[in-house]
């Protein structure tokens, strides 16, 4: 049995909100399959699983915010020894619920004492020792714990309680079918199954519904497994269904607990960026380099390519710049990787983080995996796809956490140069400004040429200026031979 835990999706993430399960218990999952949608302060991310097996149990309900590392689901992995039964489960699985119930601990002990006192009148053989306080959790074998727990009104074992808690089932409302009215795992599962079915809704659809006041319960989903997609919500927003729900906005059915209003979202995004960038600026001794790159050959090649291509296959200057940045990172591997625990670890492959500004403000820098190996048309397609998904909340976990070096291209915003702050734990950030026509000396003559200012912010702990200079020189050289990119 493997645990699928809340992943760390970037150095700035401490906790995440599980928004949606993309699989259910019993579903087969493969390593790399997206299985859940998690919302962080910065974005909504599809999280892939790292095991191949069967989803045996979902431990966390959508809408729940949990710290990084919290088990979210159990995956039955074939060809591994089966786990021992209940008592042998991993410590934190059983420790969690106990922690959550701590506040009512004393009351519970009292009740337990009373209950113990009652049967004692019947069973005189038992030692008349007063009940001891609950022992230290870590050392308690489960059976003993069960005895203590018997004090509460409804009888249920700790694992069943754990399950009930996580599924949001109130044990007091259940009639136990086990011996002595004990609530069993099946009772809880049946209670969960008896609830109205959970809607399958894509994150974008959820957001749109919240913004437009559409009641998701009234929307017919056209996606996979009848999942409600953004288009369905838009359709509903224009249809008659909108008239009724406006009064319902704010009720739990309209806005799932995981969905924060966009104002909070913007503030959370700012906080996440503030935290990470402060840390980067405090911990990383940056050095900065800059150079002007002649783009005449690259732009000529680009225009020629675009003239010959259907509109859908056109390239942007950004594609050439990103490819050059990725190839240069392969040439200068000292800048491609991460700085952790006082040493540099080279990245396995060049996964180029691309800073994408979001429409509501803020930014994310998801990775183009193996950008150095992508031909320009593929890189362009991947870039379009990545940016679209970054803005609609459909990034993958690996894209958010895998970048080995990041590029920020502020040319679109009209500026000529950008000196960025490195994303920890990466060790370099490449900046490109706008491609502008400037007077240049070429072969002893003054001419007007398109140029771009290419910059590098690098971590002085990992490299020295000479390495950074080699990197920018490589970028310059690569952009002079666009046909080889």
């Amino acid at each position, binding site marked *: 049995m493997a645990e699928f835990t809340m992943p760390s999706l970037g150095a700035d993430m401490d906790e995440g909100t599980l928004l949606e399960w993309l699989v259910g218990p019993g579903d087969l999952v493969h390593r790399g399959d997206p299985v859940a949608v998690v919302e962080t302060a910065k974005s909504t991310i599809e999280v892939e699983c790292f095991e191949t097996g069967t989803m045996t149990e979902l431990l966390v309900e959508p809408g729940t915010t949990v710290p990084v590392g919290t088990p979210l689901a159990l995956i039955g992995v074939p060809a591994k020894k089966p786990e021992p039964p209940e008592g042998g489960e991993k410590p934190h699985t059983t420790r969690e619920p106990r922690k959550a119930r701590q506040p009512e601990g004393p009351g519970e002990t009292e009740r337990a004492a009373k209950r113990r006192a009652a049967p004692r009148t019947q069973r005189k053989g038992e030692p008349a020792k007063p009940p001891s306080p609950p022992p230290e959790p870590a050392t308690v074998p489960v059976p003993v714990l069960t005895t203590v727990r018997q004090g509460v009104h409804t009888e249920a074992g700790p694992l069943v309680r754990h399950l009930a808690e996580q599924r949001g089932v109130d044990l007091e409302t259940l009639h136990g079918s086990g011996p002595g009215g004990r609530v069993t795992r099946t009772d809880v599962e049946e209670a969960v199954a008896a609830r109205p079915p959970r809607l399958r809704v894509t994150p974008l659809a959820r957001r749109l519904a919240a913004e437009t006041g559409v009641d998701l319960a009234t929307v017919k989903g056209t996606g996979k497994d009848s999942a409600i997609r953004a288009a369905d919500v*838009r359709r509903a927003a224009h249809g008659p269904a909108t008239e009724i729900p406006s009064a319902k906005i704010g009720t739990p059915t309209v806005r799932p607990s995981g969905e924060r209003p966009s104002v909070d979202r913007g503030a959370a995004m700012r906080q996440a960026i503030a935290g990470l960038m402060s840390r980067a600026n405090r911990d990383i001794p940056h050095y900065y380099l800059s150079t002007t790159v002649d783009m005449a050959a690259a732009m000529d090649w*680009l*225009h020629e390519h*675009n*003239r010959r291509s259907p*509109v*859908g296959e*056109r390239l*942007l*200057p*950004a594609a050439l710049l990103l490819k050059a940045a990725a190839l240069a990172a392969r040439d200068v591997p000292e800048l491609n990787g991460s700085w952790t625990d006082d040493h540099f670890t080279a990245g396995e492959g060049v996964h180029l983080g691309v800073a994408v*500004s979001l*429409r509501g403000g803020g930014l994310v820098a998801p990775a183009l995996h193996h950008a150095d190996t992508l031909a320009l048309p593929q890189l362009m397609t991947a*870039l*379009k796809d990545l*940016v679209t998904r970054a803005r609609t909340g459909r990034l993958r976990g690996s894209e958010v956490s895998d970048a080995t070096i990041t590029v920020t291209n502020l*040319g*679109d*915003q009209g500026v000529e140069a950008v000196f960025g702050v490195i994303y920890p734990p990466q060790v370099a950030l490449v900046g490109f400004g706008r491609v502008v026509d400037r007077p240049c000396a070429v072969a002893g003559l003054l001419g007007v040429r398109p140029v771009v200012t290419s910059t590098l912010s690098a971590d002085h702990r990992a490299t020295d200026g000479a390495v950074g200079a080699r990197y920018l020189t490589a970028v310059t050289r690569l952009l002079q031979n666009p046909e080889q990119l």
Partner: protein
Amino acid sequence: MNINRTDALEMVRESISRVIPDADFAALGPGDAFRDVLEMDSLDFLSFVEVLSERSGVRIEDEDTPRLTTLSGSADFLVARSG
């Protein structure tokens, strides 16, 4: 195919809407630089050119893009090219 100016303007608006679904045209004048107003980046703009090209049947080259700065200018461009 000839495109009249009203249709051209509508095509431009529709194409922008495809790229920026929540674009607010009420706040966008015919002479405003829509890329700036709507904060379209180069990828958005490329998508816009793709959609507009597809809808109007007019092939739009890189060199033509300076003419696609305002709603009005874009509509004029389509009318001129379709004739």
